């Protein structure tokens, strides 16, 4: 699946969750830069799962620290 298309859709999805207005790049970290708590993570993951009709298990989430890694993981999951 197309990484650019995945990125564009996640860029839109993350806007309401980016309450601090952080400039997001592939290197932005969820815990460090965005300072998300576990409930915010859950809601954001649910939004992505619904958008792409995929599951991102907590085991997979544990491997995802940066925005770029998230886009890569979702792109891969869409292709499966």
């Amino acid at each position: 699946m197309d990484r650019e298309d995945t990125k564009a859709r996640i860029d839109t999805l993350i806007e309401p969750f980016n309450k601090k207005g952080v400039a997001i790049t592939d290197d932005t970290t969820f815990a460090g830069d965005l300072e998300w708590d576990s409930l915010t993570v859950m809601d954001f993951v649910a939004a992505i799962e619904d958008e792409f009709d995929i599951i991102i298990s907590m085991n997979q989430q544990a491997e995802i620290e940066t925005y770029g890694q998230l886009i890569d993981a979702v792109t891969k999951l869409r292709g499966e």
Partner: protein
Amino acid sequence: MSESISTPDKPEPLPEVEDAKDLFSKFDPLIKQRQDLLDSGLEDPFGLVMERVLSPVTAVCNGRETILLGTYNYMGMTFDPEVIEAGKSALENYGSGTTGSRVLNGTYVGHKDVEDALCEFYGMDHAMVFSTGYQANLGIISTIAGKGDYIVLDIDSHASIWDGCAMGNAEVVPFKHNDLEAMEKRLKRIPEGAGKLVVLEGVYSMLGDIAPLKEMIAIAKSHGAMVLVDEAHSMGFIGPNGRGVAEDQGVLDDVDFVIGTFSKSVGTVGGFCVSNHPKFEIMRLVCRPYVFTASLPPSVVATAATSIRKLMDAGDKREHLWENSKRLHKGLRDLGFELGTEEPQSAIIAVIMPDLERGAGMWEALLKEGLYVNLARPPATPAGMTLLRCSLCAEHSEEQVGQILTMFEAAGKAVGII
């Protein structure tokens, strides 16, 4: 000399935090938060010592006689004369401990008897007793859901459920608390052929709210999932026979595994799983938290068995506990406190505090009035809330519930919450 006499309301100061970096450095923010709280002069909410226990509902704490409103002794079984007698007799006849695993030298007649009592209580075929409720969740969940299987669970699940997930190799998929649609969406997306376990709780212990088990279990079953329900906080109290929320909603037959504990209504310590699964007994050989630990002492299983059988016939106590819960819930709401549920759904009534500082202040003010409640704070609580959790007991008298409300009013006004 007078300075060296410790005053009961002041805890010992914590040692200075060293600057040197080591494995403990990651705890520095928490150490600081705790120190700041104690420096403000508050009593340590997590260091209370019960000096004497007078009954299931009263104790002496820091020299004061205190009403206990923060125990899980829902049915007040801890001082039941028959329960005490069973424990004493087992202690004398079987000794202080088994010093062995259930699968080696640690299964006595008492362990089989308490498992029989559980089968009678739940009307199920199999019961397996663990040394704690925590280990029951840890053991069952980590063992039955393996690599390639999926565990779908409520985000507000108890730590023992999360730790059971973390200990196993299954894919872990949480959904929003009590949200049927979120649960179903996740079940639908699980790959064809993968094993599925849905983990739910009857009563969620932080806010005291119950799960819509009837609807959730129907969805789980329609997607071919097995269902595990933790009924720790409902046993003995909720449901016509005290079997829990699943019984109350008429769906106990659809639950594959009920997890429970002896440390709440039963009044001692220990955990269990009951099931009708025809192959359930194999769990005794493959479940590591069952195998690789010592079994419960004979006195503990004897008190548990006696208590469980008495709980089968405790309709009057159940009724009185409901009355207590309803009266306290209404009284607190009328005083202007914000509560975790609109209506009382269990014996837990959570009072929502504006923040940790005022929550700790309120907790201390109540303790000085002579009332003990649980102070619950993140990460144990949902949505970062600070809660004063009140859990009622069937042995609280109507008069005591009245006293409790008077204490809440005085403390709430003193701290400026109402």
